């Protein structure tokens, strides 16, 4: 049986359509994915992210030991800061992508994908020395994400000016309703926003407070189209045990000057080139490319779609695809949609940024 999140009753009251996602009952939409998507791009939306996993790694030497399992550099993190990072296997494939919060001098909270909680925990336990504690706190944490250009105003009203003034990837523990919640200036939509993790009661009250202020409740459908439009990877699509972060084009988050599990493979890929690379595609004709659809260059199949959809804000049909090198450098490829090959222009993965800079 899928698990209910602490916000389950709220979702039903708001008329959500619920689905089982990685073992959690979550809203896929309340009214319309497109409406919710646009609310986040233009105003503010709030998501239940209680399914995300929270794993605490702490104890003497936790930092250096954990740093050997992650591609980004934890040494750059001072307390009160979080970073996006990737956990890789020795063969370079991806265990998970996650946000690491340095919650104390020698304690890190890792927010990981729901589907990977157990796997991540086992991987950490296996590779960290016995003196470093690894604790899965997921069951005790609820979470919400407030995203969109007006999030700051709403956070200011509900949690105060100081919290609203957090820098990007900064976080703090804020008192709320007799409890304490972790608030960070992070998100997964390509917009400004905040994520809040904490005890179920406090997080539920916060969710209610934001909705009362007119923030639009948003489901997993919009969460996916928003992250896709902004070119953000989703584990199981753009990342996986057989996809390295170099192939996925996550170079800014891979610090090869430090040592970590999988570094040799990533270094070789970086120096000698990977066999394939993630690209952005814009279909020149109407049609929806879905995960797994073939990508062609002339008469040669050169890759496959990892995510494809209609992009509600950009009002076009886009895809992310893993394409064999050197075809990723071509200007035009074709995506096979149900037997028909549709021409597609190769673009930077972050379609949203490209568009806002006047690229499209």
């Amino acid at each position, binding site marked *: 049986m899928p698990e209910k999140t602490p916000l389950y009753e709220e979702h039903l009251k708001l008329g959500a359509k619920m689905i089982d996602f990685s073992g959690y009952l979550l809203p*896929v*939409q309340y009214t*319309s*994915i*497109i409406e919710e998507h646009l609310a986040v791009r233009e105003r503010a939306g709030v998501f239940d992210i209680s399914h995300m996993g929270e794993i605490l790694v702490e104890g003497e030497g936790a930092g250096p030991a954990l740093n050997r399992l992650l591609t980004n550099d934890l040494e750059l993190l001072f307390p009160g800061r979080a970073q996006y990072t990737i956990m890789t296997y020795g063969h370079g494939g991806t265990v998970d992508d996650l946000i690491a919060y340095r919650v104390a001098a020698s304690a890190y909270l890792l927010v990981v994908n729901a589907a990977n909680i157990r796997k991540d925990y086992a991987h950490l336990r296996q590779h960290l020395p016995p003196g470093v504690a690894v604790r899965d706190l997921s069951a005790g944490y609820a979470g919400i994400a407030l995203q969109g250009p007006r999030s700051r105003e709403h956070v200011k009203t509900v949690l105060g000016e100081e919290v609203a003034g957090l820098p990007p990837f900064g976080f703090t523990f804020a008192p709320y309703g007799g409890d304490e919640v972790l608030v960070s200036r992070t998100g997964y939509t390509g917009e400004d926003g905040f994520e809040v993790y904490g005890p179920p009661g406090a997080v539920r009250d916060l969710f209610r407070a934001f909705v009362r202020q007119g923030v639009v409740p948003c489901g997993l*459908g919009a969460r996916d*189209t928003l992250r896709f439009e902004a070119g953000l990877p989703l584990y199981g699509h753009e990342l996986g045990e057989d996809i390295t972060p170099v192939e996925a084009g996550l170079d800014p988050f891979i610090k090869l000057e430090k040592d970590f599990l999988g570094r040799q493979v990533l270094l070789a890929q970086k120096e000698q080139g990977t066999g394939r690379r993630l690209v952005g595609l814009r279909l020149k004709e*109407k*049609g*929806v490319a*879905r995960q797994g659809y073939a990508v062609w260059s002339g008469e040669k199949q050169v890759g496959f779609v990892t995510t494809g*959809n*209609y992009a*509600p804000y950009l009002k076009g*049909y886009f895809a992310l695809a893993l394409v064999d090198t050197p075809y990723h450098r071509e200007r035009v490829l074709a995506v096979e949609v*149900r037997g028909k090959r549709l021409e597609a222009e190769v673009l930077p993965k972050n379609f949203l940024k490209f568009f806002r800079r006047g690229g499209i």
Partner: protein
Amino acid sequence: MSRVLPNLRYTREHEWLLVEGGRGRVGITDYAQESLGDVVYVELPGVGDKVVQGEPFGVVESVKAASDLYAPVSGVVVEVNEALKESPELVNRDPYGEGWMILVEMADEGELEKLLTAEEYEKLLAGEGE
């Protein structure tokens, strides 16, 4: 609760058919559009194409999923709703009206017997938890 119109015939795959003389107008039901969510693309046959009862004649794509469209009757397509090219959301907004898809010159009106009445279709929906 999804709307079911009394004057239409239905398929088990959630298409509707409006008989207009020897022709049949085809679309998807309110229940179908609601389950699909935002429709973003509709692939339809061309005028003059043949369709066969029970076989796919097109595809409707929503943000969530792609779904085949099944012909309620056999015949030749005489008109296609061109407005859906630019405004696929009409399928959500007005599934029984402006969101219609094709008009078919029916080959065999006897096929109508195989379609569900509104009452039967309502029962089918009740079985699907509607």
